[in-house]
């Protein structure tokens, strides 16, 4: 993935882009993100006007609609602070997708400015802040699904590095790990049968590895996979990576009340 050169984070303050899925369904993943960042001594600012990154329309080919949302994003996150996103997909929309959609637009420099300071959470922790091991304790075998938007970025390796370092965690290998889970945003509803088949294949590989937890850097993949599993009547326990990091702190008595 061609991405823009990122600015190293300076200072002790970040902006949080919580993502629309956390806003609507996965509040605890967003809460965990705040707690993880605060544990590292950072102040987290949450711009109230935030909505979505614009990716649904971008992927659907409605770039006009997508630019409208991205322009709202630019206004909402106007600052010099690093923007941290608990999603590789939404982060990639900002530092890759939006650049494509704005290629011929006059406000491309503003998009580039936001792109240069936008980070997926695990990437930010490891490659932005230099945190390479995580304290506390988390007991369990984890199957880590590398979301497709981590391709060409350092996010998947970063998340794996952090989790592997937590006492009690074992990362289990599973088949065809590089394959997509079948979510793909609007793909999941415009190609529902193919999406389902891809998801079932992923679940089959995951279950064969017998993990206690399915963990990912994106709630979107988790929503699709856990939704499929639940509909089958065989639910899977799933966590966002931020929740694993936060729970490790909690279990180690390291989380400030």
């Amino acid at each position, binding site marked *: 993935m061609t991405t823009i050169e990122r600015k190293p984070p300076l200072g002790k303050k970040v902006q949080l882009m*919580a993502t629309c899925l*956390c*806003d*609507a*369904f*996965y*509040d605890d993943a967003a*809460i965990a993100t705040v707690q993880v960042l605060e544990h590292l001594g950072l102040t987290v600012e*949450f711009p*109230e006007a*935030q*909505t*979505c990154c*614009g990716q*649904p*329309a*971008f*992927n*659907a*080919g*409605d*770039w006009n*609609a*997508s630019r*409208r*949302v991205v322009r*709202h994003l630019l206004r*909402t996150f106007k600052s010099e602070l690093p923007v941290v996103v608990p999603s590789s997909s939404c982060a990639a929309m900002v530092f890759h*997708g939006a650049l*494509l*959609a704005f290629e011929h637009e006059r406000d491309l420099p503003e998009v580039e400015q936001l792109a240069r300071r936008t980070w997926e959470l695990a990437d930010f922790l490891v490659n932005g802040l230099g945190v390479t091991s995580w304290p506390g304790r988390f007991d369990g075998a984890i199957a880590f699904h590398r979301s*497709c*938007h981590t*391709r*060409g970025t350092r996010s998947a390796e970063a998340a794996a590095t952090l989790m592997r370092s937590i006492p009690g965690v074992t990362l289990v290998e599973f088949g065809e790990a*590089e*394959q*997509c889970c*079948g979510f*793909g*945003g609007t*793909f*999941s*509803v*415009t*190609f*529902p*049968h*193919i*999406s*389902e*088949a*891809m*998801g079932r*294949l992923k679940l089959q590989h995951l279950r064969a590895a017998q993990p206690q937890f399915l963990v990912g850097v994106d709630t979107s993949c988790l*929503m699709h996979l*856990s*939704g*499929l599993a639940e*509909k089958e009547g065989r639910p899977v326990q799933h966590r966002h990576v931020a929740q694993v990091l936060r729970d490790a702190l909690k279990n180690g008595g390291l989380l400030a009340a």
Partner: protein
Amino acid sequence: MKTQPIDQFACTLPPEKRQSVYNGTKATHEKRTKLLAGDFADPDRLRQLAGEVKQHVIENLDTLLPQVEERLTAGGAQVHWAADAAAARRHVLAILQRRGATRLVKAKTMVSEEIELAPFLEAHGIECLETDLGEFIVQIDHDHPSHIVRPIIHKNRREIATSFEKNGLGAYNDAPEVITRRAREFMRKKYLAADAGMTGANFVVAESGRLVVVTNEGNSRFSLAAPKCHIALVGIEKLLPRDRDLALFLNLLARSATAQQLTVYTEFIRGPRAAGQPDGPEEMHVIFVDNGRTDVLAGECREILRCIRCGACMNVCPVYRQVSGHAYRSVYPGPVGAVLSPLLAGEDFLEKADLPKASSLCGACNEVCPVNIPIPDLLLRLRDKGKRAGAASPGLPPMGPWALLASQPVVWKAALIGGRLLDYIPPGLIPVPAMHAWAASRTLPKWRGGVFRKWLRQREKRKTETGERKA
């Protein structure tokens, strides 16, 4: 449920075909990945380099094509230019008719599929025999290739044995050795009787005018060596600047296409039989085919012209694996086809505008591409182009109203609260097609709209109160 054409195709695909495609692609992809990682310290760097070389080629066709014409002509070959499919067919027919040729043996060339050459020649009384075993089976079955490297990836050996029997090639026997031997016996006679042979070219080197053809069956060697006339049908983007670039490209092509270090046969052809050479065709023609490629070059998806037709993108593609190549209604299927086919369709773009949507945009294709084509970006550009051209998009929720919602925070926050209704209304009663499509196979998590924001507010309040108490 209204879904996209390729999704509907997936529902009708017989399970055994899906299994054949899945097994074949997965095995090749995994072998390829292992081989590249075992043989090279940094295979990704090789892919990037090859991508840069091909990008250089397509951006310099204006100087490289005249150069290659000059070299080929100097070597004794005749060069022809075909602006479109009809022109390419006419060139082939004219060459054959001038020689009074009625029997053509053909090695694999995707361009010949693209210009629908075989039915055209048959209509003019010329027998046109496919000599690549897969293409031969497709031909006797009146089927279409479903993969650019493995045309019959959708068939198993029982189906092949049945069609051999039906076509008078011996009683049913599905042992691969028997099938191969029978095809060989049939074809050997055809090679010897042929008036002309046709091949494609995997690469044509501008510096030397050298054509390179790789195969695993040796059929290209027979097709171009036995008959008196050799015709090569080549897309204009197939050039490489220098002979030494072949080292990089041959290493990448075989590994990417068939997970081999090198294909079994690699032909380097510099012209027809020269004086003093013991054999070879007395006449050689190279037909360079444009057929929409310069329009692609002028557009925003020109990187697709780097493609060296290895098929690695289809082997890794989760969608291709579920639907097979026939779902794409095009000569070029899979991720590369989803980009190339709508572009080459020209005025009929809208008929193929659904193809770029048949992707979860997972990016696996870009990761394996030996010339590092940013396929997902190109798919996205074509979706945008399709939208602007008014292409239909069945099943897609309208994005305009959504964008309106997502750019007005007050309405957004109200929707976060209002969304709770989702917990009480069965998905079947919600008049949104996308909801039905989702809920057919998946549950929706419990709505927790606004909960995170409330948590933040309460915490803020607590902090302020504690602060006040301290003060």
